[in-house]
């Protein structure tokens, strides 16, 4: 027997403590961009420690399960990590959320199968520990399964393969309420009422089936603009599922790590909701698209447009420029051209900054990553609060593929569906260029009076192509 093995369960606990510490330090180092890469490595080290410690100190894992599963997961993980373009990061995070939830549910179900076999004839619901165990399994399965089906649906929605807001009866709030109550009822039933391993197991399988439907029903009605909220919330759920599985296995490391992830997702969800001036309940249940449709835009009057030839001299004469990117920039893959334009302007001595609205893009921080990919220094990127007061002293604002996040109706029209939403007050600048394909409305589906403003010039066209012409035009002057 090795000295390590002699340590037994105490040794494992110590290793897990070290691992939890590394996760916590990792998150702490993520508070600064400069230390962020180290942060990720520390967290990865914590994970390696936890896996290694379990294998060496507890390990009696069936070889085919371990090697097969780890090989399969690693290959898929590496491919995803290296192949996914930065524009598709929301889909990837959505997919990973689902994998996390499903893995936790599988562990809970597997442990239940093992547990009832270990002690045949055991009545799980007998005594407080039995009830605790059955409750923990039930919750873990419920959260895990909702996360799994909800995340996969979010993945299909984000990758544009599914646009519907109903799938037959799935998606109606009434059905969701029934499913939710049924799931909670089954969790309680399996915990306190059901007797015998097989009965409890079948109750738990029913939870999985209903929870999978519930996950679909919760995500189906949610529209494109609200996706950042849903992705953040599912991120949180995947952590909570791991945490619940920690209660199943009586493992503190799972509880701590899962809770850190859960807290992260909840905080991001809160930030996103605040940036849209809506409550979480409103995002999840109000069906915003239908509300907005009742306010159909009545067409635009007095819109002025500018060609690249007309826009270039205005830009060249400016001394300060703020670029305001949105999801359209990601779709057009225009981030590199944006950087080229900014570089050109800076060579002419014009100051360029970027204004990033919290819900620009399809997930928190999406624009920041895209601009970082194009080598834009991160200290040129400013939040809504940091930069909103500066627009009035700015010569030119270039809005690229953003719409609702700079809609003055949020401030000026109390009847607007987005009234009260904090927006970038780009219209306070001397001139605003809006690079956009057409006058079509954004994801909120509402009219944007910015396009009609005296100082707004619409730059119609594909963002990338337009910027290319603009850069060429500026170079020739």
């Amino acid at each position, binding site marked *: 027997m090795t000295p390590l093995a002699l340590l037994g369960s105490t040794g494992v606990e110590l290793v897990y403590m070290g691992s939890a510490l590394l996760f916590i330090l990792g998150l702490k180092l993520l508070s600064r961009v400069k230390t962020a890469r180290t942060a*990720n490595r520390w*967290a990865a080290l914590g994970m390696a420690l936890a896996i290694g410690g379990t294998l060496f100190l507890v390990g009696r*894992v069936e070889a085919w399960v371990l090697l097969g599963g780890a090989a399969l*997961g690693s290959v898929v993980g590496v491919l995803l990590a290296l192949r996914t373009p930065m524009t598709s990061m929301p889909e990837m*995070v959505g997919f990973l959320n689902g994998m996390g939830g499903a893995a936790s549910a599988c562990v809970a179900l597997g442990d239940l199968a093992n547990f009832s076999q270990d002690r045949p004839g055991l009545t799980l619901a007998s005594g407080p520990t039995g009830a605790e165990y059955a409750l923990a399994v039930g919750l873990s399965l419920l959260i895990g399964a909702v996360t799994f089906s909800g995340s996969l649906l979010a993945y299909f929605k984000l990758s544009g393969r599914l646009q519907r807001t109903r799938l037959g009866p799935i998606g109606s709030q009434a059905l969701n309420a029934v499913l939710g109550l049924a799931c909670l009822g089954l969790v309680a039933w399996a915990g306190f009422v059901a007797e015998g391993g097989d009965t409890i197991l079948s109750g738990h399988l029913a939870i999985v089936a209903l929870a999978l439907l519930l996950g679909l029903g919760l995500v189906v009605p949610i529209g494109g603009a609200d996706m950042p909220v849903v992705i*953040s919330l599912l991120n949180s759920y995947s952590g909570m599922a791991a945490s619940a599985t920690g*209660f199943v296995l009586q493992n*503190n490391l799972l509880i701590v*790590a899962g809770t*850190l992830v859960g807290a992260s997702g909840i905080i991001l969800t809160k930030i996103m909701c605040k940036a849209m001036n809506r409550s979480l309940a409103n995002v999840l249940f109000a069906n915003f698209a239908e509300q907005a449709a009742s306010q159909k835009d009545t067409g635009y009057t007095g819109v002025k447009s500018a060609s690249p030839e007309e826009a270039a001299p205005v830009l060249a004469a400016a001394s300060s420029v703020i670029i305001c990117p949105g999801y359209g920039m990601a779709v057009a893959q225009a981030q590199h051209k944006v950087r080229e334009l900014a570089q050109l302007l800076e060579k002419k001595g014009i100051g360029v900054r970027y204004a990033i609205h919290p819900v620009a893009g399809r997930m928190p921080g999406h624009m920041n990553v895209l601009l970082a990919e194009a080598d834009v220094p991160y200290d040129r990127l400013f939040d809504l609060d940091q930069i909103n007061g500066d627009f009035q002293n700015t010569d030119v604002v270039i809005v690229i593929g953003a719409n609702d996040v700079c809609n003055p109706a949020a401030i000026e029209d109390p009847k607007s569906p987005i009234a009260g939403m904090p927006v970038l007050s780009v219209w306070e600048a001397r001139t605003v260029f809006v690079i956009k394909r057409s006058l079509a409305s954004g994801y909120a589906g509402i009219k944007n009076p910015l396009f009609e403003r005296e100082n707004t010039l619409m730059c119609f066209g594909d963002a990338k192509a337009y910027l290319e012409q603009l850069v060429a035009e500026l170079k020739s002057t």
Partner: protein
Amino acid sequence: MSLALLVQALPADQAADAPHTLSFLLVGAWVLLLAIFMGVELISKVPPTLHTPLMSGSNAISGITIVGALYCAGTGYPLLGQVMGFCAIAMAMINVVGGFLVTDRMLRMFGTKKPAPKTREPGS
């Protein structure tokens, strides 16, 4: 119900097995409570610029459930446990490997350049 009452409520045989242990639910609840507040404190300090890497990094951390999968797939357990263990290991591994790698890929883009090289470029 106070803690003392709950401990008393444990069946006698269990209390004999572990004379001074609380039920795991209670211990776990303590850990959960403290972890929630610690998590909120830590995450609130992450700047918005890093919110996407934060999400992919936390995807990787939620792969911690792989530890549970390793217990679940122990030798001698029934097939259902092992099949679940296999699925859980594979999926958790996607999160661990994919999550940490893609986060590193993103953070590398934030890191390679100095804070603002453009300001040092000649103004010509």
